């Protein structure tokens, strides 16, 4: 009995499992697309975004008594993507989530969790009209939009003027355009003792960390290549290896530390530079006297030609949504020029609009610090929208950690191995 009971339970559970393959009948998509009524949305837990979201919901609800929005923060979890993935599987995802990471879109799409926005009248046109050519990066391999490009945080180098002055560097116009200039400045910062580190990107192994060290410089060096193009890895190239070589020098010479910093190294003045988006302006505003420059390139390209990583967050509609016609109208309402202006005003993050600077001239004239980021927003590169996106980034990060940060393997060998793996993953196998 002692041994047969667990065996019986196991057999029972296997039998139950074998009977449910998770492919039960679904609702009528066309009917849902035409349906209107109350909907639920999730917002980021960033306080400024939340304040904007609540005001937007209040404004909508005031005009649509029969199609009210119920808004809540994305439930807590290790990451938003894991929570959303679990909600898709459970069938209780909300209609809209205003914080969907582009890297997670392929996985959510594979799960059957997303609604193609092209399925609404004028859906694709609305996205193209609002975002322009940049929107192409957000199309899925099947040619459809499963996300609306919402806002970006184009990353640039931010530097501490006091530390630069202490190191004998020009705090107003520092020479940081080429790799050589950047390394010379970094060595001066370190040797003068002005700061513990020249720059302090997180050296940890999470798949997304490469978005804030390798990828912005790779985008700049290649004039806008994504990590993967036509199902082929793009980083195992002379440009990719030049970027890796630049970071490797920083790590090898101790200019960038190899261990994690428990806090914000730039705010704590432990690092003289950081790679950040415009969100940083409010965070560092009065605490640090800062300046900003584009990310460096090997040849020192002109600033107005440099591309960078977008760090965008988008809006997606989830297949559990029953009143999709209302959801689509809410998307359009919340990404209108008026609401985008309110978002910009509240958060300093850049709405993904082709006419960003001309649409909000007053804002940028009053907030000059945001202008370089707004200019940069026109030249951004997104993560590739390909199958196994997260696995691809993890494979790349593992190779980068092994060769660039810890120097256990030559960069060429590590990148060759990673490129083979990435090619296989990008092809969907």
């Amino acid at each position, binding site marked *: *009995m002692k041994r047969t009971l667990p065996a019986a*339970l196991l057999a029972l559970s296997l039998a139950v499992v074998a009977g449910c393959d998770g492919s039960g009948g679904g609702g009528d998509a066309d009917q849902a697309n035409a349906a209107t009524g109350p909907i639920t949305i999730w917002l980021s837990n960033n306080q400024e975004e939340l304040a904007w979201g609540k005001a937007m919901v209040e404004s909508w609800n005031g005009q649509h008594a029969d199609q009210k929005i119920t808004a809540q923060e994305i439930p807590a979890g290790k990451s938003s993507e894991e929570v959303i993935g679990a909600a898709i599987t459970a069938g209780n995802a909300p209609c809209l989530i205003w914080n969907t990471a582009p890297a997670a879109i392929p996985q959510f799409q594979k799960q059957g969790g997303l609604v193609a926005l092209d399925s609404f009248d004028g859906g694709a046109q609305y996205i193209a009209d609002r975002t322009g050519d940049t929107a192409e990066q957000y199309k899925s391999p099947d040619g459809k939009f499963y996300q609306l490009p919402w806002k970006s945080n184009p990353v640039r180098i931010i530097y501490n003027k006091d530390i630069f002055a202490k190191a004998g560097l020009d705090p107003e116009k520092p020479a940081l355009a080429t790799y050589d200039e950047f390394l010379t400045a970094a060595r001066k910062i370190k040797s003068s003792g002005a700061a513990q580190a020249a720059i302090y990107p997180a050296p*940890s192994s999470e798949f997304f960390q490469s978005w804030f060290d390798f990828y912005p410089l790779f985008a700049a060096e290649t004039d806008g290549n994504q990590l993967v193009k036509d199902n082929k890895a793009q980083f195992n190239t002379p440009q990719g290896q030049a970027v890796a070589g630049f970071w490797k020098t920083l790590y090898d010479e101790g200019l960038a530390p190899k261990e994690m910093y*428990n806090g914000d190294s730039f705010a704590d003045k432990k690092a003289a530079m950081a790679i950040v988006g415009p969100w940083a302006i409010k965070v560092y505003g009065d605490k640090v006297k800062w300046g900003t420059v584009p990310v460096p390139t090997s040849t020192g390209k002109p600033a107005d030609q440099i591309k960078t990583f977008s760090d965008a967050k988008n809006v997606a509609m989830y297949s559990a949504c029953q009143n999709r016609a209302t959801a689509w109208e809410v998307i359009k309402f919340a990404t209108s020029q008026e609401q985008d202006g309110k978002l910009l005003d509240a958060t300093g993050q850049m709405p993904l609009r082709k006419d960003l600077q001309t649409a909000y001239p007053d804002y940028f004239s009053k907030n000059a610090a945001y202008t370089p980021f707004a200019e940069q927003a026109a030249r951004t590169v997104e993560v590739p929208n390909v199958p196994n996106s997260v696995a691809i980034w993890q494979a790349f990060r593992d190779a980068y950690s092994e060769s660039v*940060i810890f120097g256990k393997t030559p960069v060429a060998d590590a990148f060759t191995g990673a490129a083979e793996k990435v090619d296989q993953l990008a092809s969907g196998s």
Partner: protein
Amino acid sequence: MTTAAPAATKRNRAAGLLGRHPVGMILAAPYAVYLAVIFAYPFGFSVWMSFHDYFFAAPGAVVDHPFVGLDNYKAALTDPAVGQAFKNIVIFLVINVPLTTGLALVLAVALNRVVHARTFLRVSFYVPYVTASVAVVGVWLFLFNSGGLVNSLLGPLAPDPSWLVNEGWAMPVIAFFVTWKQLGFFILLYLAALQNVPNALYEQASVDGANGWQKFWSVTVPAVRSSTALVVILALITGANLFTEPYLLTGGGGPNGASASPVLIMYQRGIQQGEPDFAAALGVILVLGTLVVAYINRRFIEGRD
């Protein structure tokens, strides 16, 4: 007579089904249901997943989950990251299990004898166990980073690269961390066991001329053998489930995979990368490995099969 016989048969059948203590079975039923729902069903599901091409899908999504035989097991067993993770766990267990068992027993014996500040000392050892790992990890990051307290005390003897980014030291530091954090619980187990050791045994040993060490080795250690078996098995299970520490203390199993654990890889592949079939196969391998080691431990420590 004709009606009494079927009634007796029914009673016998009920008794046969519920055993000699039907009330006990009824009282145990809620926990049995809990185990079935929370443990047996998910475990069975994961075994099923490990033999299929499976990913999590939305209700109503039409997806195929073809049977793939041992493909997921082959993928898991030939993945260099998985091999590295199992090696890391062996290093962890070799340090953590003996250290936990030895320290917990010695400290329990000491705490059992101490007269003053007994409660304070017991609580002091127990506090790390009940404190959230996330909070304690923050403290250890400050202690073991290159400019931290430990390196300041060690001066030129500090390892380079520092502890948490040193491939040779990252896993031992995690093993020490877990030993320290779990120690209070294991001390408590030993303290309970020590209450059952008859004083007469120590008195007899004293009459025979045994010194303190001989009494500890010949009386205490054999007397708490069954608790030692429990401590070893629990420490083993803790090691097999290692996740929080490599996730937080060494930034996702770094440096360069030197502190990655099988459960961390299950999380990365199953949740982050959407390959729950691979993760399920790895989980089944881990369960089987833990069962084998636990069985060997039981044979050696308890001396029975």
